[in-house]
């Protein structure tokens, strides 16, 4: 394993237009674009399905069907079909993002509609009974309560996208996948394994960021109460009931 360590710790490999920093940035860029597009599709659709209860079966089956398509095969098909319609770098970038989005949408979609469906029906009923409009029920009650599951969908999607974005290198794009493809071509196993380590590290780092954001965004009331905390607090304030 020492050659992996040597590769990772050699400053020369981090610099330059094909260095690790640039590849990391490219990789993160592909993932970010993908997630923004996937969230823009998956979250509104999931909220709509969860809120109205309509179209659930159709969309869920479609999403699961898409999941079973092999990503690498889809990537080549997408390049063949979309590539000729586009010029320059975009000719490869658009098919790559398209394929990653196809991969990223199902978990986000599932998180969003499962989140809305998991909202306590009595809270929803009370919201309506107090005079909230359908829109207010969605944004003031359902979405805040669905956030834990929306986040869990986003996070699982993010992990998949960061791992799978390595494939973009196979169609001559950048990203950390370059180290895997090039390393294999040059039989440089230090570079290959080092690239894999970087992909895993990036995935974990991004997940950590999401965890922090989730902690800030989700109401403490939705976090399960630990028994020790509850009993400690109960002692502080007398229980009038």
């Amino acid at each position, binding site marked *: 394993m020492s050659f992996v360590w040597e590769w990772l710790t050699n400053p020369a490999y981090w610099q330059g237009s094909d260095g690790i920093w640039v590849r990391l940035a490219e990789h993160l860029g592909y993932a970010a674009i993908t997630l923004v597009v996937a969230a823009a599709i998956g979250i509104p659709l999931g909220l709509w399905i969860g809120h109205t209860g309509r179209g659930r079966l159709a969309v869920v089956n479609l999403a699961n069907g898409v999941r079973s398509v092999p990503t690498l095969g889809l990537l080549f098909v997408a390049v063949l079909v979309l590539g000729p319609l586009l010029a320059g770098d975009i000719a490869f970038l658009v098919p790559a993002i398209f394929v990653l989005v196809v991969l990223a949408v199902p978990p986000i979609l599932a998180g969003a509609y499962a989140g809305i469906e998991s909202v*306590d029906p*009595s*809270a929803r*009923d*009370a*919201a*309506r*009974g*107090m*005079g*909230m*409009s359908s829109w*207010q029920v969605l944004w003031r*009650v359902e979405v*805040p*309560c669905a*956030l834990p599951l929306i986040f869990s969908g986003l996070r699982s999607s993010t992990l998949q996208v960061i791992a799978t974005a390595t494939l973009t290198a196979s169609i001559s794009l950048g990203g950390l996948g370059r180290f895997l493809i090039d390393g294999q071509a040059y039989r440089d196993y230090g570079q290959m394994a080092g690239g894999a380590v970087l992909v895993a590290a990036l995935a974990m780092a991004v997940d950590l960021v999401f965890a922090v954001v989730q902690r800030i965004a*989700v*109401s*403490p*009331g*939705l976090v*399960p*109460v630990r028994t020790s905390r*509850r009993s400690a*607090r109960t002692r*502080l*304030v*007398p*229980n*009038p*009931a």
Partner: protein
Amino acid sequence: MIALREVTKVYPGGTAAVEGLSLVMPTGQITVLVGPSGCGKTTTLRMINRMIEPTSGTIEVDGRDTASLNPGVLRRGMGYVIQGGGLFPHRTVLDNIATVPLLLGWDRRRARSVAAEQMERVGLASGLAKRYPNELSGGQQQRVGVARALAADPPVMLMDEPFSAVDPVVREQLQDEFLRLQAELGKTIVFVTHDIDEAIKLGDQVAVLRVGGALAQLAAPAELLADPADDFVADFLGRDRGYRGLAFTAAPDLPIAPEPTVVLGADGDTARLTAAGRGWLLVVDQADAPLGWVQPTQLSGAVTRETLHRGGTVATVGGSLRAALDAALSSPSRRGVLVDDDGRLVGTVRAQDVLTEIEREPQRSPS
């Protein structure tokens, strides 16, 4: 006043939940809708705030047909309390209570200060304001639900089995406080329950519904117990109707006999002397509040808490015949203990005297 006129609700598939229901719910009173499951009581409640639209018939609130009102406006003008509270788990207790004021566009500070007042009103410690619902007991959650419904001071309250999800002891507390609150606020309340005892305890008038949503009887609780309209109502009311009906008859003129007492801690000889041959002797505390009974002849030492027989119930002078009779029946000496409003001993009454009173004037209404 809420008036239902020939209201019918037929669900798709042809099941009639409510059929031709006409009912007037007077302003400032509690109308309880009670009946077995499938009697359409919840459907009826939800038609009042248009959570469910009637198939036919009209519902008027203070003379205005609800069908002509915007549902959101209608609902914001009615407090809505459901079983379990239906609290928003992501909001603090204070923000839950401030929901309707904020929907009405009040500024946040005013909404919160009104919410804090409501917490006090329903008996929630102010320290709970920043807590989340999952940190509260069932009884506390239900209080928050009531406070939330009261926050914008609506004239009408719709309550759907609000006390059903808590244990019997807490339920009784909540019921008592609810009655105390209503005496203070005088809301027009529609209250749904499946529990006939709750209906009788809380209702100014009780509407008994039968399966299919037809009105079986509409009457004050005492009248319901005394004169059920038919077998269905009689069966639904259950046993001990005569005895339960006594709860609605005041007992102002009972012959009250003075009762010799000893103070807790007195020695055995004093107790035997005071008892003067009676089998049971009443023990009181320093403030003259009855604590229980002792048998002086069985005492080996002083009168202590351990020697007390505590089975007897205590009735208030001017309270109901039921309480007076129960005090007599539950007392080991068969002398029922009567106290004043401050809990001080007034005297005792015998079951026979209560029965005489019952026979003398059976239809007198409570004061």
